[in-house]
């Protein structure tokens, strides 16, 4: 699913965010990216989602060589991805339902299918009764669950999460983790960037540790 080969990322400021990173992730695998802040976790996720381009090296995601995905192809590439952020990135001028429906609307899913799929996604994260609510009225944990529903409503094959529990307490974090584990069990490849060691030890999955942009440790798959 993901194959990085000697990937470097240098920002225009001259900062080296990633240095010679090589690893691969199988389809259906679940991995954690960890490391101190500024170690390059977010940069790695941004490269996978084509929010940034590698400076050097080869990166293949979902059988696509990222260097050959042109700007106009990026939207179609991203439709196979679900992305979850620490700050949820929900739109506050519309309801929970409309937030979750957004990926389906932009990809031109017929109107009659949208309702069904949005409710299925909201049911999955346990917020079916909140579809008419505005995101601002929800708690942090609920907002993150809405953003997860939005990430999975398009049935992605790869789910990326950048510090998904960064703003949540331990109990809520575990609920979120359970959701990701559930998607993993349904065959979705899951990559979670976090420095929440409690979460990592509880999940007992493969961990890639970054240190100053270099891959410091790869535990390999754990079952």
């Amino acid at each position, binding site marked *: 699913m993901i194959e990085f080969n000697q990937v470097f990322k240098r920002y225009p400021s001259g900062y080296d965010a990633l240095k010679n990173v090589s690893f691969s992730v199988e389809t259906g695998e679940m991995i954690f990216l960890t490391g101190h802040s500024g170690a390059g976790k977010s940069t790695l996720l941004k490269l996978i*989602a084509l*929010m940034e381009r590698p400076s050097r090296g080869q990166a293949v995601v979902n059988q696509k060589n990222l260097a050959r995905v042109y700007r*106009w192809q990026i*939207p*179609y590439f*991203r*439709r196979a*991805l679900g*992305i979850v952020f620490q700050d949820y*990135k929900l*739109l506050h*001028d519309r309801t929970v339902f409309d937030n979750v429906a*957004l*990926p389906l609307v*932009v*990809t*031109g899913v*017929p109107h009659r299918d949208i309702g069904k799929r949005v409710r299925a996604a909201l049911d999955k994260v346990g917020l079916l009764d909140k579809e008419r609510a505005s995101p601002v009225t929800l708690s942090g944990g609920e907002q993150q669950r809405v953003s997860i529903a*939005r990430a999975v409503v*398009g049935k992605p094959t790869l789910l990326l999460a950048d510090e998904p529990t960064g703003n949540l307490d331990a109990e809520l974090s575990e609920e979120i983790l359970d959701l990701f584990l559930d998607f993993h069990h349904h065959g979705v490849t899951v990559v979670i960037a976090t420095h929440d060691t409690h979460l990592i030890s509880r999940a007992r999955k493969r961990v890639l540790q970054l240190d100053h942009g270099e891959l410091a440790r790869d535990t390999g798959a754990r079952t």
Partner: protein
Amino acid sequence: MKRLLAYFARHAQALIGSIGALTRTPLASIMTIAVIGITLALPAAMIVAIDNVMQLSSGWEGPGRISLYLKRSVGDASAQKLADQLRRRKDVAKVDYISREQAFAEFKKQSGFGEALETLERNPLPTVLVIHPASTGETQTLEALEHDLKKIDDVELVQLDLDWVRRLHAWLGVIERAVVIGAGLLALAVLLIVGNTIRLAVLSRRDEIEVSKLVGATDSFIRRPFLYSGLVQGFLGALLAWLLVQTSLWLLAGPVQELANLYGSGFNLGGLDSGGSVSLLSAGALLGWLGARMAVGRHLRAIEPQ
């Protein structure tokens, strides 16, 4: 077929959505539309005004007159003979004979130089034949007649009294060109007005654009509502311009009619015809779309997910 329907459905959705967005900020929308309306009304009104002057002056060219100034050496008898000769021509309706004495008397009376002229040793004025052409005022036949008259030996100078009409038309040509240039500048102004409005709309929906890009929205999908918004604003602005022009003409129609009656003319103030109206409305819509396109193209690229 299904895809085509889906395509139209998406566009209809974007159109309705953009009208909805305009009604959500009514004051700002009305201001923008008003500015576009006034900007478009100016050139439209100028064009209508020129059309009316053209129409009015086309009636004036009719029975132009030609003044024939004879050489001073030509005596009364031969002048009379020339006048009779000209009267027999088919393209001449009437010839007025103004003798040197008549001309001198008239000049003395009208110029106010009466006493001064008395001191002149002899009458400096020539005999004049004023020719009324028979034709209905085709400039070409008049010019042919003028050409013939110039060839007569006894004639000193031929003056076609059409000159001032021609000058008027030349002036109208200049003004028309100026209006075209002005209209171009004002069209540019509309582009900038719409561009600026759309730029602000794009910036205010930054989050939405960013998230849409993250979940796989194409540029054309994101662009569409803004383009329709520009199109709708341009169209509504043009509609306002149309109303402004037609209302102004309606207000002017009465006094103009009165003025025309006093001159014994059947002139009627003309407004924007259906062709002109369609041009105005489509120009507005096109300018709105174009302005939006320019603004969105530039700003959309700048907004990328972080």
